[in-house]
């Protein structure tokens, strides 16, 4: 009864053929045309990134990736020495301050934009002046010019900034200086993304020379960079969204550098061939904030935070139930440093940590005694209460952060020993709870810049919302007039060691108040192909990170592994031979699949009939 149906088979073959043709046509359509194919001996450094470009305009770019691109392609007035962390000259060769601290004069380096036009003080003046006058141009970096009275360029080598009040951060103006001759024609800065004309004229060690939306950003060396040209021939930032896929791409040699590894990924990569894992001291702290009573600047309270947390004794007892060491050992797999100081230890000059009796350390028994003494007695359910105030707190954790969740679960167990109940609730939007003041305990974390001014500033009383629903800077509704006084003092103190001393006192205040409770600093985990990158400069050097540095040190200094080693493990470009092979495999797989399935169906039919 089995007959071959020629028409049917013909139809199917036609269908298969049609599919393959369609596929080929479609790929042609969407393939587009890029830059020239890579030549064999070109040395490319490919970095996996998961963020997309928000804007290539430094006036608008706020993401980690794009601010880093700004760092690489535009020089700033100053930079940070990777070894000492101190400010060193960049576009500004030297600087002076007037005795009253209100006038800063920078001597601008005699060097050129990448299109050959000389860089002058007028470019710097125009950049700052535009940010002061144009709201859109202030989107990303407006904070830096907030205290500027005026900017002028009396001659091509001199930039003069007059301030409204003295500020110590004038050597930490992390603002890309833009070429006026290109930018004054840009039009509406709110709409200008700087992504139409390539290569982009800049002044940094790298030039952004191609950008394919959501796929890659290619940079080429600025051969005339005054500090010296980069060693690689090309620097490519390639999009790979998924962190596990990034790791696989590193193993396959498609990318040479990945960052943001989880402890598990770092451990797995540690034993991989030709891959080096870098455990860098973190620039980010992990913390919880205890709701001290959400309120506006005028004192109007809102939200529904548990009032027991307004009692300093309860807060201290709660902090005594946190074993910071255990959190970093377990939740962070040993990749991190337990430390209660607000500014991470990698910033040696500003970091402070409690010592001796000042330490509010892990001691659940002592926590219990403190609460007993303060009249918080255990109820039948083992939870303490006083006058209707039950020590039962909502603990909202970032749902997308497994380490936070694990640490929170650990904290819940410890708190229980002291008669405090923590109800751990992971949420996708912690910020909305903070806005409304409808929380008891929240997880938080901040990346700290070399200059600590901003991160200290968010805890001022002026960081509280001025009006209900209005914008605010606070992350914890912290407000302590003594802290505010110290803040003003450090900002006006132009002598770095004296300023650092005040910064440390501020951290001590924060620590004692137990509202902003830092756990410590998780390591920044990165990995790179040691058969491609021979060496590069970390920040801080040694022990620091390569990715998202405050400077261009890593990618500027990266040295490729010598040619003979390089040939074996060429990264980046796929040669056309491989591509052809791949294409053939696709077609073969499709065809084979079809034949196979067809045969399977056929043989089954044979069996049955």
């Amino acid at each position, binding site marked *: 009864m089995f007959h071959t149906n020629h028409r049917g088979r013909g139809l199917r073959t036609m269908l298969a053929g049609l599919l393959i043709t369609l596929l080929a046509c479609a790929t042609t359509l969407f393939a587009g045309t890029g830059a020239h194919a890579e030549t064999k001996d070109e040395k490319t450094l490919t970095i996996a990134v998961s963020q997309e470009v928000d804007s290539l305009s430094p006036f608008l770019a706020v993401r980690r990736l794009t601010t880093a691109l700004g760092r690489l392609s535009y020089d700033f007035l100053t930079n940070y020495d990777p070894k000492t962390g101190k400010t060193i000259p960049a576009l500004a060769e030297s600087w002076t301050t007037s005795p009253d601290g209100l006038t800063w004069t920078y001597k601008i380096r005699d060097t050129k934009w990448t299109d050959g036009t000389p860089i002058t003080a007028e470019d710097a003046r125009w950049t700052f002046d535009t940010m002061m006058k144009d709201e859109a141009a202030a*989107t990303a970096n407006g904070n830096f010019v907030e205290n500027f009275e005026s900017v002028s360029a009396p001659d091509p080598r001199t930039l003069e900034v007059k301030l409204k009040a003295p500020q110590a951060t004038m050597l930490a103006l992390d603002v890309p200086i833009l070429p006026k001759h290109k930018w004054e024609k840009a039009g509406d800065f709110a709409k200008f993304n700087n992504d139409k004309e390539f290569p982009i004229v800049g002044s940094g060690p790298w030039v952004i020379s191609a950008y394919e939306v959501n796929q890659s950003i290619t940079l080429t060396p600025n051969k005339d960079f005054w500090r010296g040209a980069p060693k690689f021939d090309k620097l490519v930032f390639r999009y790979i969204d998924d962190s596990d*896929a990034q790791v696989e791409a590193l193993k396959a040699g498609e990318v040479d550098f990945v960052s943001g590894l989880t402890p598990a990924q770092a451990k797995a990569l540690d034993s991989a061939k030709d891959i080096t894992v870098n455990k860098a001291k973190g620039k980010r702290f992990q913390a919880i904030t205890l709701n001290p009573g959400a309120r506006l600047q005028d004192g109007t309270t809102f939200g529904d935070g548990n009032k027991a947390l307004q009692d300093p004794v309860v807060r201290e007892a709660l902090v005594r139930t946190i074993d910071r060491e255990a959190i970093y050992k377990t939740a962070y797999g040993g990749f991190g440093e337990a430390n209660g100081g607000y500014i991470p230890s990698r910033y040696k000059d500003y970091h402070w940590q409690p010592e001796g009796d000042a330490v509010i350390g892990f001691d659940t028994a002592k926590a219990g005694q403190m609460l007993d003494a303060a009249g918080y007695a255990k109820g039948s359910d083992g939870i303490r209460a006083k006058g209707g105030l039950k020590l039962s707190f909502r603990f909202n954790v970032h749902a997308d952060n497994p380490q936070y969740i694990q640490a929170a679960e650990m904290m819940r167990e410890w708190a229980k020993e002291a008669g405090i109940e923590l109800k751990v609730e992971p949420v996708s939007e912690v910020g909305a709870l903070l806005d409304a003041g409808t929380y008891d305990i929240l997880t938080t974390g901040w990346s700290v810049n070399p200059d600590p001014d901003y991160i200290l500033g968010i805890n001022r009383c002026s960081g509280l919302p001025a009006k209900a629903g209005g914008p605010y800077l606070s992350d914890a509704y912290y407000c302590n007039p003594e802290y505010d006084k110290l803040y003003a003092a450090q900002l006006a103190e132009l002598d770095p060691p004296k300023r650092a001393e005040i910064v440390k006192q501020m951290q001590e205040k924060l620590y004692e108040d137990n509202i902003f409770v830092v756990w410590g600093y998780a390591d920044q985990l990165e990995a790179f192909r040691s058969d491609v990158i021979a060496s590069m400069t970390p920040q801080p050097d040694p022990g620091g990170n390569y990715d998202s540095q405050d400077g261009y040190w890593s990618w500027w200094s990266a040295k490729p592994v010598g040619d003979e080693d390089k040939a074996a493990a060429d990264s980046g470009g796929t040669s056309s031979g491989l591509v052809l092979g791949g294409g053939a495999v696709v077609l073969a797989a499709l065809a084979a699949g079809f034949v196979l399935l067809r045969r399977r169906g056929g043989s089954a039919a044979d069996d049955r009939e």
Partner: protein
Amino acid sequence: MTELPPSDAVPHLDEVRDRGDRGARGRDGDRLRRTTAYLGKRLLGAAVSLVAVIFTSFFLFRIIPGDPVRVMTHGRPVTIEQKEALAREFGLDRPLLEQFVSYLLGVLRFDFGESFQYNRPVLSMVGERLGPTMLLVGASLAISIALGLWLGVQGAWKHGGTADRVNTGVALTLWSVPSFWLGLILIVVFASGLGWFPTSGMKTPGVTGFDAVLDVAHHMVLPLVTLVAVVYAQYLLVMRSSLLDEMGSDYLTTARAKGLRDTEVKRRHAVPNALLPATTLVFINVGFVLFGAVLVETVFSWPGLGKLFYEGLSVPDLPLVQGLFVIFSAAVILMNLVSDLIYPLIDPRVRP
């Protein structure tokens, strides 16, 4: 995603009787009137759905907790003034009604505004990603349909056989596998392990000409295999069960009695009748093509629309998610409409 055919696909008694009267002159005007009514009803339904979607889209994403200004400036050293300026630029400081009206006027001009995050018109961002998504999801749809329907027919015709059991088992197993997990496994084995395919992305930077076509095809294999593997089962099962329903029908016996070969009976009599539920399924899924495959696009870093939607939601980038929601929904509504209109053509029983 399986959906039953529209309820009025079930033929009414008088409609069946109608067919007996076909050719009677008096009925012709009646038919035209009813055809028009059928068309009108469907078009009206689609229009009402679309309006509902446009209204919902605006409010839906404003219910999600999240302040775009706060999320976008998080961790950045910004001043209160910068935050206020952003809110002004996004129009978030204006009364809700005013925002709604300007959104509506925009949609009418087919203008969904500018993305908060990217400072670019939503439509041009969608345009950029439409190609990659249609390429990947379209190709996977075509292959899954062809593969699923064909295996479904084979399975039902020889149901209970080894091939049927194996095929159905394999399809169901793959159907229950999470796509991102399967994708990762394929990457681990075939990309970083054996090195046959690239781990992710759509093309190698800097490759041009015909090489670029092959390059895209090369990049597409693993995501395509992943997508096909996890979805072809639904076509297989729908086709298989609807063909099984037909198997015992008298008309097949009649056809066999006429002396037709088995394959002829299958191809010309059974399959056309059993194709109807599958057709509905196909059209519904074609509507969903635009939505892409968020997880697969993410695992393979495929620069498509699904990923864009995900990125928009995490802010929330209101103009972006509103625009995408309207566009996605419009595609589904349109394809449902097309399926409603085509149905009577392939099934005489539902002709008005």
